[in-house]
């Protein structure tokens, strides 16, 4: 009994599901869960503090120990944020950019992934080799030449600059190709025999078959775009094109007298929608990440 308990502690795969497993209250399990709980507080505490503080007046935010429920509930931080700091505009920018990037890059990745996995065409090997070769090129290496390029295309300070460079995502292509390799050829052949053209086959047969991969890639692409910071910071200069992270960063580093209430409210506006989406889809996201390694 002791031996199996310790072997479980050090990394055994659990067999039973959460439902069938008995909850044991041994000193060992209590200690372990207390340790995990401390970790959980450290992990989620700062985010919880952020959300709660955003509906407190300035003085109460600084109070120690912090109140778990606001003594003086207020929406002032949000009303000021939305009325005087143009946050609705930044919010819409962020949503639109992230949606366009997500739909475009997932669709393009699926299309080229299908061609690479299931169709023969001249240049296929070279294209795949180039995609694989750029998989690991870090963003820091390309951002200066990308800026020069975008400037010469006269796209600086446009929405196109925020979207176009992210529509071609090598990792997405790699992921989609891997998934599409598993689609049985018989299925595609059957569709063709029935007279479906290549595009019909793709939209009616291939895409529905890859729904889980599309969902995972879509969620993670959206997250990446929503949180993207460095490129929007250099690619747009006028305030009406700012995304949320750029607006909050410039506001928070540009002020001499810091208003914490406004800052935490701004931070909450960025984080809370994502956290809610994450909570709703967490099973999907966590599974997708552990099978693809996509961040």
């Amino acid at each position, binding site marked *: 009994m002791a031996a199996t308990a310790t072997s479980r502690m050090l990394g055994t795969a659990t067999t039973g599901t959460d439902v069938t497993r008995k909850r044991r209250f041994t000193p060992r399990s209590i200690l372990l869960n207390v340790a995990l709980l401390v970790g959980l507080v450290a*992990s989620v505490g700062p985010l919880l503090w952020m959300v709660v503080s955003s509906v407190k007046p300035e003085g109460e935010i600084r109070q120690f120990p912090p109140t778990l429920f606001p003594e003086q509930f207020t929406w002032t931080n949000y009303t000021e944020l939305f009325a005087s700091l143009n946050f609705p505009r930044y919010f819409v920018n962020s949503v639109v950019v992230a949606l366009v990037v997500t739909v475009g890059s997932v669709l393009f990745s699926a299309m080229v992934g299908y061609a690479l996995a299931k169709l023969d065409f001249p240049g296929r090997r070279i294209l795949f080799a180039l995609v694989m070769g750029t998989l690991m090129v870090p963003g*820091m290496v390309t951002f*200066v030449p990308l800026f020069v390029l975008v400037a010469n295309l006269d796209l600086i300070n446009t929405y196109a600059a925020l979207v176009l460079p992210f529509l071609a995502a090598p990792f997405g292509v790699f992921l989609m190709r891997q998934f599409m390799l598993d689609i049985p050829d018989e299925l595609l052949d059957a569709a063709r025999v029935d007279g479906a053209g290549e595009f019909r086959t793709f939209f009616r047969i291939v895409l529905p078959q890859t729904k889980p991969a599309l969902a995972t890639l879509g969620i993670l692409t959206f997250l990446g775009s929503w949180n993207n910071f460095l490129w929007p910071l250099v690619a747009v200069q006028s305030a009406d094109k700012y995304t949320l992270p750029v607006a909050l960063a410039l506001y928070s580093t540009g002020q001499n007298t810091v208003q914490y209430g406004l800052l935490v409210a701004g931070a909450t506006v*960025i984080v809370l929608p994502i956290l809610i989406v994450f909570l709703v889809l967490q099973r999907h996201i966590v599974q997708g990440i552990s099978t693809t390694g996509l961040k």
Partner: protein
Amino acid sequence: MAAPTATVPSASVPSGTVPVRRTSARRRRTGLAAWGFALPFTVLFAVFMLVPVASSLYMAFTDMHGADLRTPLAVNFVGFDNFVEVLADPKFQQAAGNTLYFVGVAMPLTLAMALLLAVLLNSGLAWFRSVFRVGFYAPVVTSIVAVAVVWRFLLQPDFGLVNSLLGVIGIEGPRWLTDPVWAMPSLIMMATWRNVGYSMVILLAGLQGIPRDLYEASAIDGAGAVRQFRSITVPLLRPTLLFCAVITGIGYLQFFEEPFVMTQGGPLGATNSVAYEIFNQFGFGNYGLSAAMSYVLFIAIVILSYLQFRLLRTEK
């Protein structure tokens, strides 16, 4: 991994009966359709990925500046001058040292924490596994800018939560972000907090792939918990650990956002990083110099990944 081609529909038409002319016509048609699928990606990929990758190499060997932005081809080749200048620059040296400090501490810390959490969660003793898993992963999905706002407040020296808590047990906390000694540890703490969930989730999946029988068999043979961890868990988890180490290492070597939003590289350059220096030189208009720096960083990334492969590869 031979991808079956769609040109020979063996199920419908016996290939022997297809006239050669028809096959090649069909080949051309599928070839065209395939390029139709590949075209949108390929064009964007060529313009926004291949061109920048190629031109960053070109720029690194030229004296390109902000004034040449619209005439990027009318610049002088300067050979390795940029690289010599970068490597001799004390500011770059400090940034390189800081980056190594950050990667050297934060990467092992992140991986160790992630492994510990994954093992605890996988032990079968954790009561609310999915709650813990979601909680530890939540910081990963948050925006760095939002996180910076929160952490700047938590680390605020006079009324921040961290120093207030330390005060309760009688310790006067340091001025975290403005003290040259404590600024980097603050950022390491924050980066670990934000990234540990990612590796944890991957390691947890890896742990679940280790067959239970191995532990049972070794327990019968009298292996203790520590021995099992060393002889079963770690060797079988090696590929997963390697993956996490490479991904974390690549991300951490490009350490930029944390100092940008938390300390602006200060105090006294104590949190300036190579990536931040690339950004600064870009801001000064020294594009050639900046491109040379990014190549140095790229080489460092390649070297680190190679070392990790050597260190963690599966023994045959």
